[in-house]
């Protein structure tokens, strides 16, 4: 063992204790020798799911978060079933006593195992995470057979056992936990009555009206609810419970009692050790107790007078504590949590945050009721900010409201938008309003905090730098605008590093400079470019972009070096996660024939295609094909490549148009087939997906395509450019309206060529159109303000003429190894002496 490591003792092995250890290991895996005390004889489990264990929808083993193996693998010594009773601060040791097997882990005087010596663990730091114990309101007769609390896995087993021999059960406590206990008991076939001292259910989260709605819903499920009811005595004439007596003199027949009436922090170990304890263990913003070597978190903690009983605050405390104790961010501070939660109580969805009732006459209360549907929504707005909200029955708005509530942002003037969304669907939130832990990049799971840290402490001043440091924006890229917003709010502007404007990362030239150099020096292959412009340094990440550029600059003359192609373009198919490929044959305008379908089916059977999938572009995708089978598949399909793997014209989909549709005003199928036959295989900075629609109903989604033609009354076509409906959604801009099919082909081709010449590598048409502006594009491409239209038309014609079907390489591969699978080079296991 490394004696230089500091010794960290964690008292408590519940959700808080295990979480803070995980956070510490994530930051400094080698820093501490970690020892944990847990009074329960298990690893760590998710207490939130206990009600599922009670109702039988999950096994106890399903809710473990960290198995005993996790402790072993991380070098943590766990004293399971051992209760820490004292932190001896003078000697610097934590003292624990092993508990008897059937001890109540959380009871104050849990019985110690006789004759087993105390355990002592020396420490440099201690973290107390002892959590809380159930609160039992004063009443006569609690304890003994038939009475239970609901807090641990063992409690669940005891309650379920007893319920099997019972007919009726009473649950004392109509809060969240009480209702969960009632739900669990129902599944054991007992009649359940919930007893609540207050006038309503879930007083902590709901106002009285919402409480009444919830009560009605619950009663309709067969659970009896008695509010304003305080139990004074459990009657047990012959040892078995027969009934309960209430303060008002009424009684209730029952066989068992489960108390779930709230929790109280467990503080006796802290008190015995001389730490400051009020209602709970007092901690500062760094989660330190009154002894700077001792930290605490979770339900046993009091911070700024507040106690917390939900998981979100505990997660926040765990992060701060881990930042501080590992010195990752020594000045990290916990500033308290704004409480909000989403729950499902007996199948009823509800969300609650902040205050449930207005505090004064100036508070604005917005309420929506739908009594029959059991829907209730209430907002309390103070100073234009959300002070509280309740959503019952329909909680779709909860996530946005919670983020706005936690961030304390101003709400829109139309309050209804908060409850029902905006009419335009525009987001209510700005990225600067989001909480630090909000996820910015959904592809790589990067939080706002990580992005902000990269900007503020990592010195990243541009979107690409942030991407390099955090990976944000390097997946689908649709969060780049959020990253840019954060740069703007942190630094006042979005900076750029010159590298961001290089056409490829490996050559320090912008596109126009690079093009000029390539043309002046007559560089026609990627290796020529590296030799002449990069001192011979090949950069793997730059090859594909250069190849694309050279191909556009030297049509017909480009020296095609296959190693500069991405694998998809080497084998004319799309690589999948398992290394197999997908094959999409061209189906012009989405119109196929029985004969084609039969060939596709035969190929799929013969090559054991794992999935046959209809694509969004109205084609058929054959998935799971081995590289070495690609030539065979293509030959037997007898159809050309659909180019579904490359940066090029992909497809032009269509609605059924005038042949069958009773609304069609233009022959969209014929148009789309003309487009597809003309532009198939034309390469571009990024993929181009097209559509034609036979009328403005837009069934084929032509408005949101890179290029779309929409037929309108009078035999005309509208041409839209720059639409998108992928990671970004954008309606295309109307470029022009024309009278004939040939004109559609003309303007589409002109736009494509201009995009091919001026689009940045990997810039989709929607980015390109926004960057140049539709007015500007219309001047250039329709009014011919630059006098280049004729030139553009000529160049696109060359690209069209250069078309050849890449799948013809099935018969004439570029290299013998082009479609070869793994080569058997050396056989190891040769049997020598079979005899």
């Amino acid at each position, binding site marked *: 063992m490394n004696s230089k490591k500091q010794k960290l003792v964690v008292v408590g092995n519940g959700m808080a204790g295990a979480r803070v250890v995980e956070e510490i290991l994530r930051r400094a895996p080698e820093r501490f020798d970690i020892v944990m005390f847990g009074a329960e004889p298990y690893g760590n489990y998710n207490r939130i799911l206990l009600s599922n264990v009670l109702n039988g929808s999950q096994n106890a083993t399903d809710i473990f978060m960290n198995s005993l193996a996790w402790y072993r693998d991380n070098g943590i010594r766990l004293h399971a079933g051992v209760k820490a009773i004292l932190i001896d601060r003078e000697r610097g040791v934590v003292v624990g006593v092993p508990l008897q097997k059937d001890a109540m882990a959380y009871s104050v005087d849990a019985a110690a195992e006789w004759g087993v010596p105390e355990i002592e663990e020396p420490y440099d730091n201690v973290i107390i995470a002892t959590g809380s114990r159930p609160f039992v309101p004063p009443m006569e007769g609690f304890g003994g057979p038939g009475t239970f609390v609901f807090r641990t896995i063992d409690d669940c087993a005891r309650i379920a056992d007893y319920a099997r021999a019972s007919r009726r059960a009473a649950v004392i406590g109509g809060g969240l936990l009480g209702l969960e206990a009632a739900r669990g008991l129902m599944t054991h076939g007992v009649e359940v009555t919930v007893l609540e001292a207050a006038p309503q259910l879930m007083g902590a989260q709901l106002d009285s009206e919402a409480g009444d709605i919830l009560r009605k819903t619950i009663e309709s499920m067969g659970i009896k609810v008695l509010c304003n009811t305080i139990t004074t005595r459990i009657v047990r004439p012959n040892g078995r419970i027969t009934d309960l007596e209430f303060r008002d003199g009424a009684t209730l027949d029952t066989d068992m009692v489960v108390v779930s009436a709230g929790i109280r922090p467990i503080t006796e170990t802290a008190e015995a050790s001389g730490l400051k304890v009020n209602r709970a263990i007092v901690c500062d913003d760094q989660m330190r107790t009154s002894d700077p070597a001792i930290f605490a978190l979770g339900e046993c903690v009091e911070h700024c007078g507040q106690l917390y009983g939900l998981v979100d605050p505990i997660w926040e405390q765990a992060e701060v504590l881990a930042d501080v104790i590992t010195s990752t961010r020594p000045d990290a501070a916990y500033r308290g949590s704004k409480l909000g939660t989403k729950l499902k109580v007996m199948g009823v969805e509800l969300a609650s945050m902040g205050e449930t009732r207005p505090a004064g006459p100036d508070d604005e209360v917005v309420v929506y009721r739908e009594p029959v549907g059991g829907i209730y929504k209430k907002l309390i707005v103070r100073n234009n900010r959300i002070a509280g909200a309740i959503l019952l029955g329909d909680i779709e708005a909860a996530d946005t409201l919670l983020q706005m509530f936690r961030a304390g942002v101003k709400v829109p003037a139309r309050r209804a938008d908060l409850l029902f969304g905006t009419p335009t669907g525009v987001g209510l939130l700005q990225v600067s309003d989001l909480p630090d832990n909000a996820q910015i990049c959904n592809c790589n799971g990067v939080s706002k905090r990580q992005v902000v840290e990269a900007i503020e402490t990592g010195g990243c001043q541009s979107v690409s730098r942030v991407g390099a440091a955090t990976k944000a924006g390097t997946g689908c890229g649709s969060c780049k605008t959020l990253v840019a917003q954060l740069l703007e709010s942190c630094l006042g502007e979005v900076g750029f590093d010159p590298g961001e404007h290089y056409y490829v990362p490996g050559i320090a030239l912008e596109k126009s400079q690079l093009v000029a150099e390539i043309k002046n020096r007559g560089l026609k292959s990627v290796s020529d470019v590296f030799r002449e412009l990069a001192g011979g340094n090949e950069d793997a990440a730059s090859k594909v972009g250069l190849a694309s550029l050279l191909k556009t600059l030297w049509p017909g003359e480009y020296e095609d070096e296959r190693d500069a192609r*991405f694998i998809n373009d080497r084998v004319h198919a799309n690589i999948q996660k398992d290394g197999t490929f997908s094959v999409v044959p061209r189906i012009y305008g989405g119109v196929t024939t029985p004969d084609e379908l039969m060939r596709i089916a035969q190929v799929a059977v013969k090559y054991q295609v794992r999935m046959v999938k209809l694509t969004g572009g109205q084609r058929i995708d054959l998935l799971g094909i081995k590289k070495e089978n690609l030539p065979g598949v293509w030959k037997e399909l007898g159809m050309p490549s659909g180019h579904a793997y490359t940066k090029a014209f992909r497809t032009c989909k269509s609605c059924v148009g005038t042949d069958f549709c009773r609304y069609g005003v233009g022959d969209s199928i014929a148009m789309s087939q003309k487009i597809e036959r003309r532009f198939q295989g034309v390469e571009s900075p990024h993929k181009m997906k097209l559509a034609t629609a036979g009328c403005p109903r837009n069934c084929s989604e032509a408005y949101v395509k890179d290029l779309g033609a929409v037929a309108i009354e009078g035999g005309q076509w509208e041409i839209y450019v720059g639409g998108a409906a992928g990671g970004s959604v954008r309606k295309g801009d109307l470029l022009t309206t024309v009278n004939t099919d040939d004109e559609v082909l003309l303007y589409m081709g002109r736009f494509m060529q201009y995009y091919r010449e001026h689009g940045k590598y990997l810039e989709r048409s929607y980015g390109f159109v926004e960057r140049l502006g539709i007015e500007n594009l219309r001047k250039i491409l329709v009014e011919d303000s630059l006098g280049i239209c004729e030139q553009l038309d000529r160049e696109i014609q060359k690209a069209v003429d250069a078309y050849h079907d890449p799948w013809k390489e099935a018969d004439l591969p570029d290299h013998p*190894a082009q479609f070869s699978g793994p080569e058997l*080079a050396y056989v190891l296991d040769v*049997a020598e002496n079979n005899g």
Partner: protein
Amino acid sequence: MAETLDKVRPIDVGEITAIPMGQGRCYIVGTEEIALFRQRDGRLFAAQNRCPHRSGPLAEGLLGGNHVICPLHAHKFNLDTGKGTEPNECLRVYTVREVEGKILLSPEDVDS
């Protein structure tokens, strides 16, 4: 009884021209998938074929400047050292050379 690998004699993997210029190719050596790379400047590299990230086939990746980029998620590796640009991602690399047009792989690192 199975034959064990001769740890001294290099493994003749085959003709160098079997690998397209500037590309990689996957070979199965004993029980291992090994990617061999033929860089345009004449250098040869050998490394485990499967990317440590999500098992992408590195032999299908882009090669250049002594690095390979995985075709699945663009994780990048130095083929001299095996070191990846992502933290904690490293490839096994093998010693490989060309002799008279043949590719010879040193066997000492290969599992047997």
